[in-house]
């Protein structure tokens, strides 16, 4: 029996390890992924003034701080019982859309995309954004520039692009001036042009080459969760939850009923919980007959929505559906879906900057502390993000529950790794390119293990247990 370790899993946010155990014939016996980190935000937010939480929970994730910031601000609105004025709401949506463009460029080109641009089997020393920049200096320059444009825009709108402070209970603390709006528009248009380029470039040059890999690596059969408006249109800031079964049928619920639909399962071998659809039966990650498993993030959102409100992204969605159907289960298509979302958000930024409300000085209403419960949800890039707060009469926090995007995908990531390893490693034959393809199945989910492990510790480690056919543990492998 031989063990293969991939450690650390690279070009993801956070640390992870994959260990694959081979049987005597050199085929994959079993893999069992175990994340071992916690940080404790749900504990140490208790006792804090609730209006301070939007600037504390941001540190759950430095890659998607705006998602936590906005979910927290929305939970605050609910706690205080207020509705932000139109400009306050739209400035939040604007920041959300800008942040999405920045993050999707980051993921596609800096993290995941190197596999497609440089090739999954290319030498590891060039299979990264620096390699992309050296092989294609002009693309490299555009990638660095356009991601940075996003953060510069957020600095203009809010003062602080990472760990922002301007979404407050009741709205947004900083109105947008007409001068700033004029400064932002050309930047937004440049990012939109880049988004169009990225979509076309990937469709022409990257995805077709790897279609066989897409259709075989990491493919599992699950349900999907995402957010839509009343008429089923994709929305990343507000709406209702749509929970879709693998057969495409779905039910919908308002997020303040999330505890009726989502449970969190605990396994004794991991700190990270496993959210599951409570009504679909007992939790099981069995590859042949999974139960309660759904996925979030870009592919889930493309599957659950009926349409997209912006023209270019809608056209791409139609093309995507024509080629792959609905719902589509191919894990690596998360990357394709992400580029459609990049386009959608780039269009949305321009649309919002041309909205006549956006420069209104009325961005915020004052709030008064009270004892209440408030639930705030947004679609974070990595999936549906739920912040649930309770306060006492002074507005001090008495309880916090968080379910974050990557955590929803805990079970699917486990399953895709297992499926990918089983598909790719046969008769003991593998090389660094093979192992990189196993990692590609993880990268497709763009997991943010900092987010997922918000509960206690910082670093992320993964443990894998190898079990024999009887389910007995024959070997345990860990990265600590």
């Amino acid at each position: 029996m031989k063990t293969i370790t991939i450690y650390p899993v690279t070009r993801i946010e956070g640390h992870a390890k994959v260990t694959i155990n081979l049987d005597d014939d050199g085929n994959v016996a079993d893999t069992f992924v175990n994340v071992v980190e916690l940080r404790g935000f749900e504990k140490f937010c208790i006792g804090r003034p609730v209006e301070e939480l939007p600037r504390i929970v941001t540190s759950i994730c430095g890659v998607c701080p705006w998602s936590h910031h906005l979910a927290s601000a929305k939970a605050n609105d609910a706690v205080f019982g207020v509705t932000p004025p139109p400009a306050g709401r739209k400035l939040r949506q604007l920041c959300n859309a800008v942040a999405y463009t920045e993050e999707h460029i980051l993921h596609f080109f800096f993290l995941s995309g190197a596999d497609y641009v440089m090739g999954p089997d290319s030498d590891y020393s060039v299979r990264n954004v620096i390699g992309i920049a050296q092989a294609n200096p002009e693309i490299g320059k555009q990638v660095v520039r356009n991601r940075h444009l996003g953060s510069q825009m957020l600095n203009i709108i809010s003062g602080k692009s990472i760990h922002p402070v301007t979404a407050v209970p009741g709205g947004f603390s900083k109105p947008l001036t007409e001068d700033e709006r004029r400064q932002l528009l050309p930047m937004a248009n440049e990012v939109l042009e880049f988004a169009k380029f990225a979509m076309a470039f990937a469709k022409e040059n990257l995805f077709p080459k790897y279609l066989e890999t897409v259709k075989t690596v990491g493919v599992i059969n699950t349900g999907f969760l995402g957010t839509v408006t009343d008429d089923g249109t994709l929305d990343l800031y507000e709406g209702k939850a749509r929970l879709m079964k693998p057969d495409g049928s779905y039910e919908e619920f308002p997020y303040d009923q999330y505890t009726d639909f989502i449970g969190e399962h605990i396994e004794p071998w991991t700190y990270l919980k496993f959210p599951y659809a409570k009504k679909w039966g007992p939790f099981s990650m069995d590859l042949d007959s999974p139960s309660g498993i759904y996925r979030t993030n870009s592919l889930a959102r493309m599957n659950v929505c009926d349409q997209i409100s912006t023209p270019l992204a809608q056209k791409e969605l139609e093309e995507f559906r024509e080629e792959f159907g609905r719902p589509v289960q191919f894990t690596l298509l998360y990357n394709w879906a992400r580029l459609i979302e990049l386009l959608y958000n780039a269009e949305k930024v321009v649309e919002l900057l041309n909205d006549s409300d956006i420069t209104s000085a009325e961005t915020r209403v004052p709030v008064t502390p009270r004892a209440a419960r408030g639930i705030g949800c947004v679609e974070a890039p990595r999936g549906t993000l739920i912040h649930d707060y309770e306060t006492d009469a002074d507005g001090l926090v008495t309880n916090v529950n968080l379910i974050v995007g990557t955590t929803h995908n805990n079970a699917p990531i486990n399953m895709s790794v297992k499926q990918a390893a089983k598909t790719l490693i046969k008769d003991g034959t593998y090389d660094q390119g093979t192992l990189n393809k196993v990692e590609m199945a993880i990268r497709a989910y763009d997991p943010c293990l900092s987010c997922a492990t918000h509960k206690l510790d910082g670093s992320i480690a993964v443990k894998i247990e190898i079990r024999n056919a009887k389910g007995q543990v024959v070997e345990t492998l860990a990265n600590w």
Partner: protein
Amino acid sequence: MAVKVAEEWLNICGGCEVTILDIGEPLLDLLGQLNFVHMPVLMDHKYFGQTGDKDQMEIPEADVGIISGGVRTEKEKHVAEEMRKKCKTLVALGSCACYGGIPAMANMFPLADLYQKVYRDSKTTDPAETPAKDLPPLLDRVYAVDEVVPVDVSIPGCPTNPDLVVQALTALLEGKEFKLEERSVCDECPVKREKKAAGGQIKRTLDSVEFQQGQPWENTRCYMEQGYLCLGPVTLAGCGHKEEGNGTTVPRCIKGYMPCRGCFGPIRKGANPLVDMMTAISSIGLDAKQVPDRRALLNRYIGGQNRLRPLPARPR
């Protein structure tokens, strides 16, 4: 010859790594002079060889090592020690590495309380025993990197400022020392100060500060003097961005019309912002005792180095 750089992240959110990317296009020029030999967030270099065949963790030797994040587990401690061994100059990047950061707010609680909350007292979770089977031990609390290994250069901030990363890297490339000037956020804040506050009440940020948007910053009154707690007086300067056009440097949160919460940490090593802030509040005529949740608020980013600890149980 290019300078070899290794980067590791420990108890992190990733914001400081994104800050490195926020250097923007000048980063491409810097990259020509830097040779990244290990950086898990961007590069595929593995600890145990590319197909995982080696027994010992190997971080390559480097001229400069950069660590973000504080130290929470035995495993992170090991990585910090390995980085110290392999890197000639070790940089602590961001307030988590320098002071423990926001995750060190967990230092206010014993571990058992955290486990109880997460695994037994969470409303969506099917309660269970704390997972413990072969899991890596957590340290008793969150540590700053310099509590574990000696650090040569500290660049605080939550996240830090890309301009400071460029300055520090440039200094290191030229073989010069990099150290931030001991100035406060107030020293670079452009708002108008009259050294006294309007009334005795400390206000929470439940309503907007008064501001004069589109006018010179000196037409806006200091938020602290308006009665809102602002940690500018006890916080190291360095977060600010230069505004387009007028070139005024404005602290980040101040630009968002929100008071400072101290993310760059104390102005000088060994300072006690909690005590200093109480003095600052009283000196302009506000009632220092009224600050809600004072201990956590004034130590929000700096709970390592024993600044935040579980309080002894109150006598009944």
